[in-house]
């Protein structure tokens, strides 16, 4: 059994966390993987912390990423990094808003899509599949802006370190 890829997306209510996991799950589905997506709604609608888990691979069982087993932690709001760091595996990749140049984005609302672009550089799905999922996931009028934001995240600033490899030597410290 091939291990599933585990991704956790975190942020605050209204930032598009769940929209981000929608796109991520859809692109994995389009690429033919088994995929599961888990989210907690309800009180999160009032500006509280929101997280969504996406797992894809040959076969996925639990819809929830186990603590300490996330391959990628994508965080939309800097204050939400520490509360969710315990989800990352020791060699996991943390992607924060620093990964994309905020001043180059079409608008603030596209941060979630730009960070998906940064994440996409680490994942096996083809660029066309990502763009298909973006086109399907939003109203057509938003596609150009989202496409631009996604490509900035995916290709922009190639020379610089776009993501930080995070070492979490002692997971016990983060509990």
């Amino acid at each position, binding site marked *: 059994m091939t291990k599933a890829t585990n991704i956790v997306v975190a942020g605050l209510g209204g930032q598009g966390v769940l929209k981000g996991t929608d796109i991520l799950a859809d692109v994995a589905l389009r690429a033919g993987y088994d995929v599961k997506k888990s989210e907690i*709604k*309800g009180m999160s*609608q009032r500006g509280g912390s929101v997280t969504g888990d996406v797992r894809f691979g040959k076969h996925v069982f639990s819809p929830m990423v186990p603590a300490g087993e996330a391959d990628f932690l994508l965080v939309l709001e800097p204050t939400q990094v520490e509360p969710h760091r315990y989800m990352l595996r020791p060699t996991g990749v943390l992607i924060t808003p620093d990964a994309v140049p905020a001043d180059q984005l079409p608008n603030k609302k596209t941060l979630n899509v730009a960070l998906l672009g940064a994440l996409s550089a680490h994942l096996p799905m083809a660029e066309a599949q990502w763009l298909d999922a973006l086109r399907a996931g939003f109203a057509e009028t938003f596609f150009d802006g989202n496409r631009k934001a996604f490509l900035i995240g995916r290709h922009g600033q190639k020379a610089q370190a776009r993501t930080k490899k995070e070492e979490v030597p002692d997971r016990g410290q983060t509990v």
Partner: protein
Amino acid sequence: MNEPNRLLLSGDEAIALAARHAGVALGAGYPGTPSTEILEHFSELGGHAQWSPNEKVALEVTIGAAFGGARALCTMKHVGLNVASDPLFTVAYTGVSGALIVVSADDPGMASSQNEQDNRRYAVAAGVPMLEPSDSQEAYDFMFSAIEISERWKIPVLFRVTTRVCHSYTVVRPRAANGAPRPPSFERDIRGRVMIPAYARPAHRRLRQKLAELQEWNETSPLNHIVEGGAALGIITSGISFMHVREAAPEARVLKLGFTHPLSMKKIAQFVKGVARCVVIEEGDPYLVEAIRAAGIPVEGKADMYRFGELDVPRVRRILNNDLTPEPAKPPGKPPQLCDACQYHIVFEALRKHDCIVAGDIGCYTLGVLQPFEAIDSCVCMGASLGVGLGLRHVLPPDQARRVVSVIGDSTFIHSGISGLVEMVYNPPPNGHVLIILDNSTTAMTGHQEHPGTGRTLDHEPTGKVVLEDLARSLGIRRVHVVEPRLGTGEFDRLLADCLESNELAVIIARRPCILIAKQLKQYEEARCECDAATTVSASAP
């Protein structure tokens, strides 16, 4: 590789899709996380779905539909089944002519609920068969099975799901729609449906006979299956726990139960005999483990510490390892709060200023309990603000009693606050009472659903409207005020002070639409105006 008919659906969406494919004629319910999206999606798919004022009415409406021979779906969150339990227990006796599926969406871990009760207990208490899917594909498939069982045994079926089944998206391959349901038609069955004692006594015996037959049928039902594995470790599980088990213990042999009341005890006994160690992995109450042990079958359960909250892969590993060490606490996230521009800020500021003792209720406004207001003193269940406030008024010394206020939202008031208002008129405390209805013209907390006070149906079409102030006045309450809380006017504050000092019964309706749906509300109103105008023209045409 990607098949065109692979869909990524939430459990809620899968239930709705199956209901549509199976020809469910009517879906009714009351919004409640995590069940709300079932009826919304059913409606989007073209199904006949409606919000009822509360879960009891919803169940009664669907009982009527099933008495009429139709396939009916009733949805609610776990605490909603408490409200609907009265009809549930007796419709188990009467049975149904069509199909009746009652979805109970439980919330272990309380992502958005006031308790984590385990509604599997209701299947036993009421005596109804229960199915528990573990992902969206099973949610879809089991709906067809539930309808078949309901129609074959003429019995309501409890369809028990949990937050992680409802709100997780997993791949579904829909099947071709099966045979169309027969058209609804009334057939008189007085002895079967009129539960006077003389007819209810034989009805109870019929119910037990049906359950005995169902238990026998369940022994070979395809709803339970075995995942082969080594004989060293056997695991009996159901629902979402099955998924955690497969990941935590891929080497184990697993008996996965989909039909969990009445239990297939022969199959369970045989499974246990074939493994060296057998552990029951279940979320919440020790429902399976107690039933299996009561049947004389030796199995291990989980330690009491795992009864709290939901299970996940790490917790299942700990249960299997008999690990009783304290679990790592999750770092706190940012808690939710009232929206910055919410009109309720003004209400809670006034309540604080007057040092009110506030009997609160269920909804967005429960967030008034948090910083900076900390202006709610109790929250028990839907509608409880009225009764709790009145009880406090009756027993507290006058200086405290005069400061007691009940606070309830518009949808919650319609749900079960109306009978509390009747109680207020019937048994008024000596110093009167003050009820504040926070009317934001929607069921905000669950994602902005309509209710009878908005005058719009589930799919936002105009319909009859319950006018809260007219209702209160019709009950004989003289002080009924409608006020729009606005910053800087002090109007709400003065009104509250007047009512508190009056020693009379008072109802203050603080009315202003939720800011999150102001735009949609305007569109609905415009649509209604156009509709009215069109009607007027056609009515006046010769």
